[in-house]
């Protein structure tokens, strides 16, 4: 494991580069195929509305995967990730138009956990259309 960020170089409050991840219907179909999660709420508008959703919604696990990229891009080595957890608070609604939706991810170092293990806790803020879509979104990474 070879994280490209040194433990000594970060402090609580250190911000990771923020990113925006666009998501459209084609992306959801592709994710359904790759992940094996074919729940129709992620690709069938008629079905989604029948079960009370405003429209097709992204897979929660897709949003979780995108949010992780802010952390793994920062560490360089995705293998530096020790723990990762989220709460699915609100769905990412993906309309059938040219734009689709956008997942916005910001993250910062919340605390340094262990000087020996060189682990830090990262807190993530994940929103779409101005609404928080993931809560309690935290990662623990081992730095160099």
């Amino acid at each position, binding site marked *: 494991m070879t994280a490209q960020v040194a433990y000594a170089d970060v402090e609580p409050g250190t911000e990771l580069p923020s990113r925006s991840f666009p998501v459209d219907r084609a992306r959801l179909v592709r994710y359904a195929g790759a*992940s094996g999660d074919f729940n129709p709420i992620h690709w069938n508008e008629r079905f989604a509305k029948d079960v009370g959703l405003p429209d097709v919604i992204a897979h929660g696990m897709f949003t979780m995967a995108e949010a*992780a990229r802010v952390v*793994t891009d920062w560490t360089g080595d*995705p293998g530096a990730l020790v723990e*990762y957890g989220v709460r699915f608070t609100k769905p990412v609604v993906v309309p059938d138009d040219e734009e689709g939706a956008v997942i916005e991810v910001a993250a910062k170092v919340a605390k340094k956990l262990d000087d020996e293990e060189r682990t830090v806790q990262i807190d993530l803020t994940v929103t779409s259309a101005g609404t928080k879509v993931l809560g309690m979104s935290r990662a623990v990474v081992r730095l160099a």
Partner: protein
Amino acid sequence: MALDQSFVGRTYPPSRPYEVGREKIREFAEAIGDDNPAYTDVEAAKALGHPDVIAPPTFVFSITFREVEQVVRDPKLGLDWSRVVHGDQRFVYRRPVRAGDVLSVTSTIESIKSLAGNDVLDVRGEVRDPSGETVVTVRSKLVARAAEGE
């Protein structure tokens, strides 16, 4: 309807082994739009100290969710699967999942609670290699929303 508390602590038999392939990892990485070379380029992965390409962190869920689904669909448990939503998801990694891994999942129901009429189930999946070493621990919280009129 209250769920049967006797299911708490129940562990299901290990799943059929899943062999992690390089091309499946590539497909998953492309599906999430992640071009980190550790997922697709063996040399890049080796330069980071991994024996082969590694999988994106949430990839392992596509192995475990079928097992979790099997557990919560157990008719004896009495959960209304059509009302189940994914509440929380958490992973603890001993090391990253990588190409060539042969992984088996052992699922345990950790807790069953009733909160504001919703049934809340915590399921833990231990993802193990053939030697029995845990590679990833996967914890999923599933919420079955209360039926109307209850």
